[in-house]
């Protein structure tokens, strides 16, 4: 700032003197400012020893007072006045209060010092602690913990109990709901067992076997309806179900297939009036709902209908020698002459009318449960066949039919092979065959049993095999004499009972085929009996009759009868005689021969020869019944004795 001239500035202190007086002419008389010492004194007076040094209020007040000090002399004058008031007590100079305060402080300090020194000596003054209230006795910490734990546990238990209460409430509610059975939950249960589908607003189900392979044209649909006839005011019945099923009217009730074999053909007029006896329904599982039993029964009716439809279709189509008769609900066929097989569908509805009519006693004994069961099995097999991979085309574009039939073209099968592929037998034929076999088997068993009971000696034993085929059974027949089982081991027959004939296999390999006639089997078995006796008698004749002593020992029988005369001979080895009398003949014969031989021996010892022939004997049958058993026994005793002797025997001469 070279161009600008310097300006003189004078400084004057701002501190102006206090005005003491303003004269009339406007002159001001100033107070002389306080000197340094005066100022200090003024400040010292202001110190208040009664208050702590940390009191800020005083300091604040002090500073305020200080701050106000300069602007207004009036205020300082006031303070001076206050100081003056303080000073007004007989005091003189500003340091007086300070001096007094200091003095009192000193006094007090000295006193304190003295007291402390005396107390330190403990001669004249001691410090006595002030008695305080005893502390509350410390409680056992364990009991405290226990109590605290108990309390906390009680609190937790409370919470848990509340929760449990809530749960039990909900469970009981659920159970109550179960009993009440919500429609939807019941529907869910139904869906677990049966196929359902929704059509419009109706729920329909399928109880036919179509999905299992059946080809029966019945629709088999049932309807599921809501059971709304529930009176809420009354108590809900126990078996209440909110769901009900409506089955087709022709499947109501229960049905079964009755298969029976009768000996005599009934009159033609009796056909078609099969006694339907209502079979008691099979017990349903406890706890299964009523719709389940209803639907199962309806399904069974449908299956029986299918079986019967199949059988009647085959009965009409298949040509057989004796045609099958199909009347109403019965199929009649003749497997054997004088034998009638009747298969009927017994369908009883649940009406009250029919229940009354079926109270008459029916005889269910001729019903062959086995065949009924087999019918069910066969139809199920047929179902499975339609669904099996043999029938279903693989690949999907191949034609339907048996798998091997599809190959028969490209592999050039000839007629034999094609026929073997096609199952030529229908249901009816199979059942008839099975029925024939069952009948034949039971009759063979009856024949054997009757022979066994009628003829005591020799004995016949029959060992039936447990494992049989539907078309074949076998039995092993042994004919033995008591005591001579080892000798008569040769008579062992294996009978294979088939559908229409019985094949006999002898132990020595001969195979004989018998027809279904009962008499044939009986005759054949009797001839085998005779064989047994023949063996025994041959044995008797085959040994050297030189041992007289043996005869003497066993001789106990007296001759009381017997006219023996020479006559026409009957050769020993012929079995052309009638079988029944042959047996008795033989036993008597053997006895008499034994007696005669003994007599002869006694009378004509020289004439006893080895090959004693019966040419000169014939028999008198007077006492044939009485002596039959005893005689044979006698004969056997003789034979036994001879056997145990040292004689050589040749069995089969």
């Amino acid at each position: 700032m070279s161009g600008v001239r310097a300006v003189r500035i004078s400084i004057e202190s701002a501190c102006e003197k206090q005005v003491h007086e303003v004269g009339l002419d406007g002159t001001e008389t100033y107070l002389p400012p306080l000197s340094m010492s005066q100022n200090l004194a003024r400040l010292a007076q202001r110190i208040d020893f009664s208050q702590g040094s940390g009191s800020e209020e005083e300091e604040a007040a002090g500073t305020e007072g200080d701050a106000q000090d300069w602007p207004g002399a009036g205020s300082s004058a006031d303070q001076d006045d206050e100081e003056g008031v303080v000073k007004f007590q007989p005091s003189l100079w500003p340091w007086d209060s300070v001096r007094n305060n200091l003095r009192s402080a000193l006094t007090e300090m000295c006193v304190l010092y003295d007291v402390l020194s005396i107390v330190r000596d403990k001669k004249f003054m001691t410090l006595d602690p002030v008695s305080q209230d005893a502390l509350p006795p410390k409680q056992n910490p364990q009991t405290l913990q226990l109590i605290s734990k108990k309390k906390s546990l009680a609190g937790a238990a409370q919470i848990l109990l509340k929760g449990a209460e809530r749960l039990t409430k909900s469970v009981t509610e659920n159970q109550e709901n179960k009993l009440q059975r919500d429609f939807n939950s019941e529907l869910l249960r139904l869906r677990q067992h049966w196929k359902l589908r929704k059509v419009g607003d109706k729920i329909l189900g399928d109880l036919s076997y179509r999905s299992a392979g059946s080809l029966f044209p019945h629709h088999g649909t049932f309807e599921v309806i809501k059971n709304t006839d529930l009176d809420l005011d009354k108590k809900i019945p126990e078996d209440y179900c909110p769901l009900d099923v409506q089955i087709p009217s022709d499947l109501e009730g229960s049905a079964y297939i009755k298969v029976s074999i009768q000996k005599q053909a009934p009159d033609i007029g009796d056909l078609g009036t099969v006694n339907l006896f209502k079979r008691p329904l099979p017990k349903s599982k406890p706890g299964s709902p009523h719709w389940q039993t209803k639907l199962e029964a309806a399904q069974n009716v449908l299956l029986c209908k299918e079986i019967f439809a199949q059988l009647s279709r085959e009965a009409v189509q298949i040509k057989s020698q004796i045609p099958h008769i199909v009347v109403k609900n019965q199929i009649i066929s003749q497997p054997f002459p004088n034998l009638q097989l009747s298969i009927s569908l017994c369908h009883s509805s649940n009406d009250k009318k029919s229940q009354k009519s079926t109270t008459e006693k029916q005889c269910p004994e001729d019903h062959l449960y086995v065949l009924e069961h087999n019918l069910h099995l066969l139809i199920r097999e047929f179902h499975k066949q339609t669904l099996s991979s043999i029938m279903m085309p693989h690949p999907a574009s191949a034609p339907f039919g048996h798998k091997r039939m599809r190959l028969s073209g490209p592999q050039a099968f000839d007629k034999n092979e094609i026929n073997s592929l096609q199952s030529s037998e229908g249901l009816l034929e199979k059942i008839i065959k099975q029925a024939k076999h069952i009948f034949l088997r039971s009759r063979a068993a009856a024949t054997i049993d009757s022979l066994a009971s009628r003829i005591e000696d020799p004995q016949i034993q029959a060992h039936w095999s447990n494992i049989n085929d539907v078309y074949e059974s076998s039995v092993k027949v042994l004919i033995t004499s008591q005591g001579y089982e080892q000798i008569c081991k040769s008579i062992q027959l294996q009978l294979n009972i088939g559908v229409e004939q019985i094949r006999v296999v002898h132990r020595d390999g001969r195979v004989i085929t018998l027809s279904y006639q009962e008499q044939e089997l009986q005759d054949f078995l009797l001839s085998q009996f005779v064989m047994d006796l023949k063996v025994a008698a041959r044995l008797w004749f085959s040994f050297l009759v030189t041992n007289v002593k043996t005869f003497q020992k066993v001789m106990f029988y007296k001759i009381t009868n017997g006219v023996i005369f020479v006559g026409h001979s009957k050769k020993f080895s012929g079995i052309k005689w009638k079988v029944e009398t042959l047996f008795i003949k033989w036993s008597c014969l053997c006895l008499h021969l034994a007696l005669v031989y003994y007599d002869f021996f006694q009378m004509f010892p020289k004439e006893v020869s080895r090959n004693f022939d019966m040419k000169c004997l014939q028999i008198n049958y007077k006492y044939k019944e009485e002596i039959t058993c005893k005689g044979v026994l006698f004969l056997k005793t003789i034979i036994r004795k001879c056997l145990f002797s040292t004689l050589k025997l040749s069995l089969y001469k």
Partner: protein
Amino acid sequence: MGVTCVSQMPVAEGKSVQQTVELLTRKLEMLGAEKQGTFCVDCETYHTAASTLGSQGQTGKLMYVMHNSEYPLSCFALFENGPCLIADTNFDVLMVKLKGFFQSAKASKIETRGTRYQYCDFLVKVGTVTMGPSARGISVEVEYGPCVVASDCWSLLLEFLQSFLGSHTPGAPAVFGNRHDAVYGPADTMVQYMELFNKIRKQQQAAAFME
């Protein structure tokens, strides 16, 4: 399926086809064979359509479609020296669809019909070969069931043929010569029939030509 031999029986001098057939059948019955029904083998000829032939002008191949009542569900298709196809009876329907590629030759259907005789393990078929309404010849087929290898039983077959055919016994068929030890199949029988039919057809043509 056993080894089969197909041969032709020439018509006896001064006799018609029918009479010769009767002679043969009588011989067989005296031998002890039992009649077991009838049989029929027929053959249709197709040739490849002209449209499918190349510009080189190669002659179309002839295809024969044959049926045999012995294999009722099968149909045989074969070329002259080529493969033989054994198919389902749907093959006939397929041929209709393949009209564009294979055309049936005119008046080509030839068949043999006759009776079937069973003599223990032998199956003898004596048939009259007809083309249209007229009988052209006699076919004799003998099958020996138990054996499937041609070379093993040819001598046995020959002996049997001699027993009732006498001097007209044929030689070993060509198919036997091809595969001695291979298993004999129905296709080989059909090849033999095809050859027989062709021979008869040529004879017929030659006779017609001569006339």
